């Protein structure tokens, strides 16, 4: 590991001033991904700016029914919060589906959004990887890719974003707030992650040196009936091979509103808007759910070893929406 300086900050202005002055600096939150990447030699910062003591550790209900989540709130705090569990249960379920109790206690909400892919070529500096070393190639396309992207990938990178939390946040139209040395800004999560294209090393639309300060969830009454389901290769404590956040408002058998987002299928949490459009105003039955999933997944491009994800995601859409529809009918 490269040697590095360490500074702890207690004010947002001080944090962004430090990072803005040094392109080799990184913010340190829980460190559950960054410290591991530093051990592997994937990240080699010269300075860590520890942001855990910033006054960004609160979850505040908004009068309009939404929520504001500070960037240094831990995953555990988020999943335990009564208002999160009441207003956006799929968000609590998504966070609880990720990592272990220890890691959730350490990891922060802001850091979760900025965590890196677990693609084995990215995390091994001895291998080529366009995301880590632009222009070096993508061995996953010809190699180990059974858990790689089926949507929105490119010939330059097929890695998936590993976050569970981000999938639920995407379904609920979360907005990311950030601070820079030039002032604050906001990015809807839908525009937060950049398309892969030929620049997989550029992952987010955050300005250089920006510090995520929080996430705002707009009011979403539909989210009160929501669910996150994750499929993985063992019962617990593993990254998804496919996941879904879903919310459904159905009355008299007709879909009034639906939210759908997929995890572990793309370089970012994937909002399934094509499926949402296909479902809205139509019947809430298994045939309609399957047709909507097919419409969304028509854009899928599979590799020799990840084609199963198309079937997996289709089945997840049908299963979770059927469950939500049945609960609504009770």
């Amino acid at each position: 590991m490269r040697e590095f300086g360490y500074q702890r900050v207690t004010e947002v202005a001080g944090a962004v001033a430090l990072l803005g002055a040094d392109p080799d600096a990184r913010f340190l939150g829980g460190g559950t991904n960054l410290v591991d990447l530093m051990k592997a030699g994937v990240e080699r910062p010269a300075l860590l700016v520890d942001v855990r003591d910033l006054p960004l550790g609160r979850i505040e209900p908004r009068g309009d029914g939404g929520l504001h989540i500070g960037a240094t709130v831990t995953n555990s705090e988020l999943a335990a919060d009564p208002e999160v569990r009441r207003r956006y249960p799929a968000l609590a379920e998504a966070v609880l589906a990720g990592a272990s109790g220890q890691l959730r206690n350490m990891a922060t909400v802001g850091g979760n959004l900025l965590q890196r892919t677990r693609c084995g070529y990215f995390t091994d500096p001895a291998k080529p990887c366009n995301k880590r070393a632009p222009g070096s190639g993508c061995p996953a396309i010809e190699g180990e890719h059974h858990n790689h992207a089926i949507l929105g990938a490119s010939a330059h990178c097929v890695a998936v974003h590993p976050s569970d939390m981000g999938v639920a946040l995407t379904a609920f139209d979360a907005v990311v707030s950030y601070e820079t040395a030039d002032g604050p800004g906001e990015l809807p999560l839908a525009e937060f992650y950049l398309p892969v294209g030929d620049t997989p090393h550029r992952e987010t639309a955050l300005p250089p040196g920006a510090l995520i300060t929080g996430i705002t969830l707009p009011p979403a009454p539909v989210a009160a009936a929501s669910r996150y389901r994750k499929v993985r290769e063992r019962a617990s404590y593993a990254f998804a091979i496919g996941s879904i956040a879903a919310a459904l408002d159905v009355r008299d058998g007709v879909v009034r509103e639906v939210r759908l987002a997929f995890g572990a299928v793309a370089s970012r949490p994937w909002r399934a808007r094509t499926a949402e459009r296909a479902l809205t105003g139509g019947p809430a039955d298994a045939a309609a759910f399957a047709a909507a999933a097919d419409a969304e997944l028509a854009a899928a491009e599979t590799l020799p070893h990840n084609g199963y994800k198309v079937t997996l995601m289709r089945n997840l859409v049908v299963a979770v929406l059927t469950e939500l529809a049945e609960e609504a009918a009770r």
Partner: protein
Amino acid sequence: MALSTSSVITLNINGEKRTLPVDHRTTLLDALREQLDLTGTKKGCDHGQCGACTVLLDGSRAVSCLQLAVAAEGREITTIEGVADGDRLHPVQQAFLDFDGYQCGYCTPGQICSAIAVIEEHAAGWPSAVTADVRPEAGAPALTAEEIRERMSGNLCRCGAYVSIVQAVAQAAETEARRMADTAEGELTA
């Protein structure tokens, strides 16, 4: 500005202040084992995947292999050496003995630190990934074997002592719940 790559820090460990120089690259795990002779905390994978290095930070369980020592300054650190009350074992330690919650014992300090926190997290009403309904109106889930297995899934045991570990955690949780109930009753009658 050339920043120093090392610091002299003071860590609060098991109620004692310990001052030591650290290279910033030093994890809390390595500081405990290599510099402070607190070798009860074990190094397994060193990547946050096995839980052998679990300690309590401000009462919350954390993997010390991904925690930089310099970033732990100012926090209350509890290691396996600090969970007993003098010669009286912590109820979770006693339960692991009573139920043979180990074989080789290497993962045990991490299992015990994790279990202590699991019982507290459950008592605080935290749901888990196997909780059927996470909404607060649904109430806190019972600490069933399924809940214990999920909540302890960050602690691997290569010997496979899981069956006994689950029993030990369940027993310790019951003991703790009884103690809490007795305390509450004592306060009511006092």
